[in-house]
Structures are given as structure tokens and as C-alpha cells.
């Protein structure tokens, strides 16, 4: 298939980290089945390091390959560093994407970021609840 690079085809045919995480620390969902692209990312975070990333994707070859690549890139990074992963980074790691598939790489990076943001929001909430003691914000 000359349309996609070898690396894209590898990540499409053998996607890494497909699945869900029960009791995930963060979940991020992007895309729209109407457009033909939808990704849900799950993250497990400990001591501010991304321990595990899993995903489910409805989309084309590029979407699946991007999801796989993003999940690999996120694993083991600090939350801050993982938030810095851009679509350009993903496309480079994959050896390039056809121009009309670049938006898939946006989606992948965004889905991971959304999951991490979800984690951060939850983390903030927990902190606030712990501070006030009774959890109703009266403290």
C-alpha cells in the first residue's frame, strides 16, 4: 500500500495498547462518528508519570495508526511532557502522513491531552475536597 508509510501500516496492522482501563485516572474522547473519526483515550497516572495508556478508535488506517503511536509516545512521560506532544511530533514518528490525513494526527494528540486534562481536573477536585474536610466547600 503506497498511500501510507511502512510505519503507519505497521501501527495500523499491529496497533499497540488497544483497550480500556478500568478505573482510569483520566478519560478523553474526541471526534465524531459522522466525520468517520472517533477516539477515546484512557490514562493511568502515578506520581505524575503516565503509567499506562489505552485507546479505542473508530476511524481509518491513519486514525488507528496515530492512536497507537500516540499511546506509545505518552507512556512513561511526565504529565507535563505528555501534554506537549503535538500532531507534528506524531506525524514525524510515523514517517509522515498523507496531507489529507494530517487531521487524524491532531485528533490523536488531542485525545491524549483531553485524557490528561481529565486526570488533572479530577486531581484538583480531590485536593480541594481533602482541604475543606467535609467536601461541601464550607471550610
Amino acid at each position, binding site marked *: 500500500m503506497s498511500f501510507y508509510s511502512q510505519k503507519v501500516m505497521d501501527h495500523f496492522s499491529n*496497533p499497540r495498547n488497544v483497550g480500556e482501563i478500568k478505573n482510569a485516572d483520566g478519560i478523553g474522547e474526541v471526534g465524531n462518528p459522522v466525520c468517520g473519526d472517533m477516539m477515546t483515550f484512557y490514562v493511568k497516572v502515578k506520581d505524575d508519570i503516565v503509567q499506562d495508556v489505552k485507546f479505542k478508535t473508530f476511524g*481509518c*488506517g491513519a486514525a488507528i495508526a496515530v492512536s497507537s503511536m500516540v499511546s506509545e509516545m505518552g507512556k512513561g512521560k511526565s504529565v507535563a511532557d505528555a501534554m506537549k506532544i503535538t500532531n507534528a511530533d506524531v506525524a514525524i514518528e510515523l514517517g509522515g502522513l498523507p496531507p489529507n490525513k494530517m487531521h487524524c494526527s491532531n485528533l490523536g494528540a488531542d485525545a491524549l491531552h483531553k485524557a490528561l486534562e481529565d486526570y488533572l481536573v479530577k486531581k484538583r477536585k480531590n485536593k480541594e475536597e481533602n482541604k475543606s474536610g467535609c467536601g461541601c466547600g464550607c471550610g
Partner: protein
Amino acid sequence: MQITYFDNNSATQLDPRVLEAMVPFLKENFGNPQNMHSVGAVAKDALDNARKSVADFIGAKQSEVYFVSCGSEANNFAIKGIADANAQKGKHIIVSAIEHFSVLYAARRLKKIGFEVTILPVNQIGEVNLNELKAVLRKDTTLVSIQIANTEIGTIQNIKELALLAKANGSLFHTDAVCAAGLVPIDVNDLGVDLLSFSASQFHGPKGASALYVKKGTRITPQIDGGVQEEGRRAGLENIPAIVGFGSACELVKNEMIKNSASIKELRDKLIEELPKKVEYVYLNGHKNNRMPNNVNFSIEFIEGEAMMLLLDSKGFMVSSGSACASKALKMSHVLTAIGADPAVGQGSLLISLSKYNTMADVDRFLLEFPAIVKCLREMSPLYAHFIKTGERQVAGPGTDYEHDHDHSEK
């Protein structure tokens, strides 16, 4: 790895007998039919013979057949040529919503220069309604263009009745027969059409040779100006090898079509019958019975078409899809949109178009391999996971806004 070619609406394998007929014209018989000398004369004879075969194939006179380079050119010639030639009489054109882009965008081009275009909707199985056509025909309607059958969903139109309506209104009728020719019988007199497009490449002839049938007495403005070829209606050095191949393909299919189409239909019916038994949540697109004998089109829910095509390709199956990602334009097929296919479900569209070179063994092998491919993609799909957990279909998730402008007309 064995290659199973299931995408014959895109291109077909050359019949070896057609190749044999063409070879001399790629080698020693290289002349230009417009030349007066003996070398030119050989080419001229070949051109004339091919024209006779092509005309016979559709029940037309030789003088009514114009050779062009491809189906898109035939359609452009018809739409623009008729609109222009009849502009004094009227500037209203009617086309169906499921026409090929070469018809739709030719009509859109006319819109930009002051013509009015009415797009006829179709029902959920892709049929144009006779009463709806009647309702939009006007005094100033000069042309109606409705295809014999749809290349994607296979639905066959009631051309005879539609053409009669147009005729009664004093309008000309063009039909795009590109995907139908060679599979169902075509007789221009029986159909009652004024113009008809069809291509050699659809029935085991070569690429590069198509024809527009123009009924005698029909005024049409040439689109390619220059030399005197095609009675001054379409300039350009004729693609003799391809035209010879076209003629040969017409002769062969004229004798073999009934038998071939019956066999192909058997394969089609098995796929249509068995696929839903092997895979859940699949929906047939197009008319169940009144469809092209070689056309199978299913929407496979919860998965995306391009990914499905890639996995099938890795197993040696060549198919097509109407999903947005599968199209370079990133829009779901306009045909699936026109029949009201759910935009999410339509993304998982599978199009198989068979030919006489496919066998029952091909079909059986496909039915064996396909379920695993669907299973693999569904296991990855958040839509499927959601459905299994909740019994609900996810309509739309929170979106990342991204601009993609893929307006065809800009190209």
C-alpha cells in the same frame, strides 16, 4: 498471496481477446485515420469497424456514436453540449442527486454561468420518482440526466418511463450508462433516450475509449474544438488502439452478456444472502432486487470503511468503500447521503463489484475471511464498546474542531 479483485466498477481486467485485437494497432498499424495515404487508411478502416460494433451494441446508427476519452468526458459533452446548444430555448437542467460527479459538477459549472439546475432527490433505495420528475419539468427545461444504474448502490432506474416524461415535455434525455453497459441489455430505441454515455473500461475493454450516443438530429455544441474528427464534433487524434479494443469488447459482450450476467448474479446473491448471517449489524444499500447483477453494497456498523479496505487488502481482497476517509475529499459518499444513510453507519460502507472473472470460490473465501476483519475492527471501536455496554448507539461525541475544506470545484 491470491488476489481477489472485487472492484470492477473502478476498472476491469482486459479480456485477452480484446488485447489480441488491439496489439497490431500498438505495433505495425500506427497510422492516423485522418491521413490520405495507405497507412492512414488502415487506421480509418479500424475506426469505422469499431464504430459499427459500438453502435450495434446499443442499437444505434454509426453516425450517432461519438468517441471520447472517458465516461467523464462523455458526460461533460452531453451536459454542457446540450445546455449550450439549446440555451436560447431554455436554461433549466434536471439531474438526479445520485449522478456521477462528472454529471453533477458539469451541471454545477453551468449554474455558475447562469443556468438553473434542479437536483432530483431519490428515495431510501435510490429510486427517482416519476411524479417528482413531472413536478419539476418546465417549459424551459432543455435536458434531464438520469443514470441507468448507480455504480455505488446498484439501483436500476426506470429510464423508459422517465425518458417518456421528458419527451412529453419537449426536453432531451441523457443517461449515464457507464456502470450498466455490458451487464444489462441496452437499446437506445427501446429506452427512448436522446443521449447515452458508456465506457469500454467497464466491460473488459481498455481505458481511454468511451462513447457518447447522440440521437440523429440533436443539436450539441462541441466541447473540444480543433480538427474535423468525429464529424467536427470532437476534435483530437483518435485513440485507435483503445477504440479498436472498445469495438472488440462490444462484440464479445453482445454475445456473452446474458450468460455472464446470470453467473455474476449468482455470486452477488450469495454475498447478499450470506453476509448478514456471518456478520451482525450490516445493512444492504440500494434496491434488493432491481439492482445491477454485479453490485453488493453493505454498511457495516461500528467500523470505518478505509480501515476495513486496508485489512481486506492485506488478505488479498480488493474492494471499495463510500466512507469519508476512503474518499480523497473526506466526505461520506454523496450517494449514501442522498439515500439518507446514517452518517455514522455510512462510514462503514463496503462496496463489492463483481465481474465474469470472479468465481464462487472467491465469494466463499471472502465470507470466510470477512467476519474476523470486522471483529478485529469492532474490538477497537469505542462505538461498538458503547453499544455492547448500553445497547445505545453513540450519535456524536465531543469534537475537536478542524477545518477541512474539500470543495471539488476549487480543483
